[in-house]
């Protein structure tokens, strides 16, 4: 098996995991925050009570765990593959957030919003096709 093929086999499953894990984290955060009324508090004690209620939500911690997992997977991917390969693939996460919001939160994603999300994916993909580094590396080496 060639090195490139081995690298593909190693990175593709992790790219799929990152495309699901990051958006899933945001969906869980959304579930934890939905209806908490934290933006409409009337006093400091009110804000504290809302914050404590949010902190007690399992969804908040599940969301943070997913985002931490996403961060670790992303870092791992960047040690194996080029940033310019990982970043465009990550643009698909904007599509998966729409799918997961529909499936898990029951949000109605209008055709106009789908169109916007697809245009964003295209834009991120184009950004990802550019050179990942334009400045010389720092001189200090650890």
């Amino acid at each position, binding site marked *: 098996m060639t090195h490139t093929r081995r690298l593909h086999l190693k990175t593709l499953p992790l790219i799929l995991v990152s495309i699901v894990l990051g958006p899933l984290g945001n969906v869980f955060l*959304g579930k934890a925050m939905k209806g908490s009324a934290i933006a409409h508090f009337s006093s400091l004690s009110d804000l504290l009570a809302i914050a404590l209620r949010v902190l007690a939500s399992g969804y908040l911690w599940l969301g943070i765990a997913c985002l931490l997992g996403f961060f670790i997977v992303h870092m791992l991917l960047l040690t194996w593959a080029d940033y310019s390969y990982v970043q465009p693939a990550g643009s698909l996460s904007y599509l998966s957030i729409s799918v997961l919001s529909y499936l898990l939160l029951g949000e109605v994603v209008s055709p106009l919003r789908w169109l916007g999300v697809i245009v964003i994916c295209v834009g991120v993909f184009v950004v990802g096709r550019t050179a990942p580094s334009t400045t010389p590396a720092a001189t200090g080496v650890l």
Partner: protein
Amino acid sequence: MLEAVLFFFIVVAGTGGELCVSRAMKSVGEIHDFRPRALLRFLIQSARLPWMWLGIALMTLGFFSLLTLLSFQEVSFVVPVSALSYAAGAFGAKAFLGERISAHRWLGIAIVCLGVTIVWWSRK
């Protein structure tokens, strides 16, 4: 109005935080040694840099703004609109880190902004 302020914090503070961390990382230099002692030295060196702490503070502000916005807006609206951070990141990287942004990358960023505008129109 509150919505716009929170998006401003998510995009500007979040991206500003990443730029500050990036600046701190660039001054520390590349990591070639991944042994625990070298990583610990790297962490200690990073923690001594004010840019690192400013970055963490700004990213925290961005995260709490995201949580607040998610309390009254849909996830499928908030996350795509926060892609504006690609544009903020490009302007910030050019001004703050001296990066050269190619015409090809500006084109990608313009497409992202167009997509964000379309998603914004879909707001309920």
